[in-house]
């Protein structure tokens, strides 16, 4: 049998207080709070913002759809993608097209795809006309192979043209998607 404190003593007063159910709850909560604040090493829980999601070129909209492309005596060919997906709907997308980057360390077209005026995760694409007669390009003889690349980034490309890879580097935190085609030249394009 439990031994109770004697009536009139301070121990009895404390025992009576504990008998009060509301008071018991209050004390329990205070102990819990104190315990959780000072005694338990809680993990550093924060509400995380959604990290930057990369843009995605819709591969089913690529033109030409084949990764290997032939160019005839017209020496011209259009390349395009007509849809991109960007989950961060306010991001502006930056597009650059490259031709034979291995030799011409620069881009041939720069473009932007604005955030859609109607909130949507899908938006348009971009196109580029390769003209092998462009005098900035080397290798114009029949049988030459060329590489056309496109990068779609959700951050601007670096303005500093000394940062490697030159004209391909993207500002910190940016994500990108990338497509390339191999182009075979069937005729001379001098």
């Amino acid at each position, binding site marked *: 049998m439990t031994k109770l404190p004697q009536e009139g003593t301070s121990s009895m007063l404390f025992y009576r207080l504990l008998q009060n159910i509301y008071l018991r709850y209050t004390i329990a909560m205070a102990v819990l709070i104190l315990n959780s604040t000072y005694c338990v090493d809680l993990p550093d829980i924060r509400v995380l913002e959604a990290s930057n999601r990369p843009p995605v070129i819709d591969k089913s909209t690529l033109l030409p759809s084949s990764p290997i492309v032939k160019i005839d005596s017209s020496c011209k060919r259009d390349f395009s993608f007509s849809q991109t997906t960007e989950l961060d709907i306010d991001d502006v997308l930056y597009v650059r097209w490259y031709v034979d980057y291995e030799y011409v360390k*620069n881009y041939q077209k720069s473009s932007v795809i604005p955030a859609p005026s109607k909130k949507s995760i899908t938006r348009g694409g971009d196109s580029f006309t390769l003209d092998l007669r462009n005098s900035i390009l080397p290798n114009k003889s*029949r*049988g030459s192979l060329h590489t056309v690349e496109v990068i779609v980034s959700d951050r601007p490309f670096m303005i500093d043209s000394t940062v490697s890879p030159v004209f391909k580097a993207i500002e910190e935190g940016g994500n990108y998607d990338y497509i390339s085609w191999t182009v075979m030249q069937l005729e001379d394009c001098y």
Partner: protein
Amino acid sequence: MKTVISYSLILILLLSACKDSADRPKGTGCFILGGCEDTDYDLDNIYFRLSFYIDGKYLFYQTGTMNKSEISKDYIITVEDVFTLCGRVEYDDSPVYASIRFIPDPRDSMMPSVIVDTDERGAFCTMLKGGRYSILISPYKQDTIPQLVRDVELSEDISDLTISYPKDDIRLIYGSVILDTKSGIPVEGINVVAFRQISNDIILKSNISTTDTNGSFSLVIPDSKADFSLMLSGSQMNPDWPNITFKDIITESVIQLQAISLGSIPPSRQITGNVAMDERAKIIATMKTDSMSYTKSFTTDTGGYFETNLREGTYDIVIAPEDIYNSIWSISQFKDIKIPDTTTYKFSLDRKTTLKGRIISGGNSHTPQIHLSRMSGCRDAGDNIQLDTSILPDSDGYFSTYLSQGMYRIVIDSDDPTGTPIVSNPLCIETDMDLGEIQLPNSAQLNGKIENKLGLPLSDIRLEILLKQKSTQEFVPIISMTINKESFSVPIPNLDGLQ
């Protein structure tokens, strides 16, 4: 009563607001930047190019013209007269691995040629619209097998077209290349090819023979009678040679060519110079005569200094900053530069010009975009540098950018799927230019359907709307949309609304 009146007023206001946004004109009728009165574009017709895949593998094009009086009607594009063409290519009874180009005759400049590869058995298959075609066969083994041209009339399916290189209608030509007649030293590593212009689109070429250590070459010409020209050029082994053309020197009776001397090719000279800029620049030097063309590209250091070898002669020189988009310096041209000269070469580039303007939204909430395409230099100075860039205006519609001097086409559009762009005539931009206030034009709608008479399995159907430039006969695509198999509705320039 008071509440009823208030609600009625709010309702009327709401309705009038809806009516206002529906009826408000989005822009002007004219879609040519600078006005529709004086333009080189054909404004009486709209041109279209329909493309689709048949069976998921054969890319097919169909083109057409629509007069502006036809635009308001439902337009039917009929897919018919589509035939299968299969066959194989042989050379000396062996299969030829080649690219085959089908070129419609007469040529339709809106229609890209269809290019098909043969497999390892030399076999090919494609689907084409009925009609007459020139077929150009370009073997991949171009060091030994020449090109070949054949014609075909397609009015029904052809399942076994055999294209054989003729054994009797072919010529073997031998020759050699020497440095000069005095020394007679053979030149190794020169590419030699015979060619003949058959039409505007087709140049028929022999195999490409690279001279050996004795300077010797041998050519196979797929024609026993016609005259052929000869072209010599540098190869990877020996790159620094001009392209030299000897017109029609291969006649019917020629088998062995006399030794071809390169003695008339001007010697190389070392030159040094400076481009007045503190960054790297690319220099493209071109020398052209009736029988010879020579182009050499080289770069300066970061201080603009250059040192290179160029052959003696008179050059057109184009200089572009290496950071061609961001530099303050423009692509610049210098004509009739003599090599060698007694002075050190010094070049100063022009600064870029400013292009600015403002796009008026006209109540349209869509985001506009400005596309700037540099097509060439302003005048014929050998500058064929093409650049493309697109920019966004600020929130008030203002835009401003720096551009290299040159010939530009400006297209302004928006992300409105029902809108059409405003297009400029080709513009020579040499000095700062203010395009003023620009309003996106009203568009019309082209409704129609695809009538697939043969019940072909069509996929990836795309309709392009093009404008025709009258002086050059070139077509400029302005709208490109994926459409479904049955019906379509695409925005087109409002030709009917033009005065």
